[in-house]
């Protein structure tokens, strides 16, 4: 009988300690701020509202396709989509470079992509690139020294896919950064 009382007391004690510890743990965790308190949620809402306001002001546009409509149907047979970049980064001391140059799949023409420096030095020319295909690794004709090369040119020469007749083309200027 005595031992039963001892076991029952032990169980009660254990349950009490467990409940106390869990309650203490939850309390401390809330105080640490790891979980967003209601104030944090409202702050987040305020930040989001501010970002949305900026979007409407046109200062930040994350998804331009949904904010504007284009009058011209891109990718039709009479159009060419030309991709451009503000900056590309190459590695110094090697001719092999990782890039992401592509012919948008919506196009109906071949691309020949040429990379030139501002002084018209040609450092790369691609083969004909079909719509939807891309270049991820290229080999330059010369090794570049580290530095910033302003007004480098990505030249898109466009060709009809049936006759290979030259179409309108474009030069896009970009900043070429060559790093060690």
């Amino acid at each position, binding site marked *: 009988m005595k031992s039963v009382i001892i076991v029952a007391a032990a169980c009660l004690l254990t349950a009490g300690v467990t409940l106390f510890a869990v309650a203490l743990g939850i309390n401390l*965790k809330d105080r640490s701020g790891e979980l967003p308190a209601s104030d944090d949620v409202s702050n987040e809402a305020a930040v989001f509202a501010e970002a949305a306001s900026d979007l409407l002001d046109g200062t930040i546009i994350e998804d331009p396709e949904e904010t504007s409509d284009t009058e011209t149907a891109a990718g039709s047979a009479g159009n060419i989509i030309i991709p451009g970049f503000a900056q590309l980064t190459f590695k110094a001391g090697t001719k092999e470079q990782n890039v992401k140059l592509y012919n948008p799949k919506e196009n109906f023409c071949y691309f020949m992509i040429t990379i030139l420096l501002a002084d018209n030095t040609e450092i790369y020319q691609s083969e004909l690139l079909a719509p939807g295909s891309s270049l991820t690794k290229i080999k330059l004709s010369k090794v570049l020294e580290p530095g910033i090369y302003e007004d480098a040119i990505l030249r898109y020469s466009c060709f009809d896919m049936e006759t290979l007749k030259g179409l309108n*083309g474009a030069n896009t200027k970009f900043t070429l950064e060559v790093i060690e």
Partner: protein
Amino acid sequence: MRKRVLAFALVICLLFGVMPMSANAASNSSTASTTVYYTVDSYYEVVIPSAINLNEEDGFQFSATSCSLPSGKVLYIAVDREKTFDGGTYFCLFQNKGLENEKKIACYLRVSSSKEDMSYTEIKGSPGSSQIVAVFQNGNLNPILRGYLRFHCSPSSNTPAGTYSGQIYFNIYLDDPSHYTENS
């Protein structure tokens, strides 16, 4: 006596079993972090005409399918004077270009804000004349300035019949908005 020892041992086991759980609930000592990288590239995709049949259309409306530009920059599309005008003042369409029986028709290139806008700026091959046909702002898929390039060809009465064609080359570049002027 043996039962007492057993009960005591049971209590000790239960207490030690519960301690790690309560300690974990109470502290933030076991944390881990992961750095997440996402590089936002400045890029754009603009739409230029591949070919225009002037019997069906009088011009072309420039647009973009993507326009994520660096802060403080706008995107310009300009006619490449050297490659488009061949040193002349006007854009020409040719028949049998480079051959002995070459024929050509001079065209006026006129840029306005839209197809409906009949006011225009002439794009000429002469130095100093404006070459800009469209200006895009960050996030805008339609030009904020100019944007519609119109062709006005004037074959003379003795121009031989046939199909005439020519190519226009464009320079696409980022620059400060302040660099835009009507006569740039």
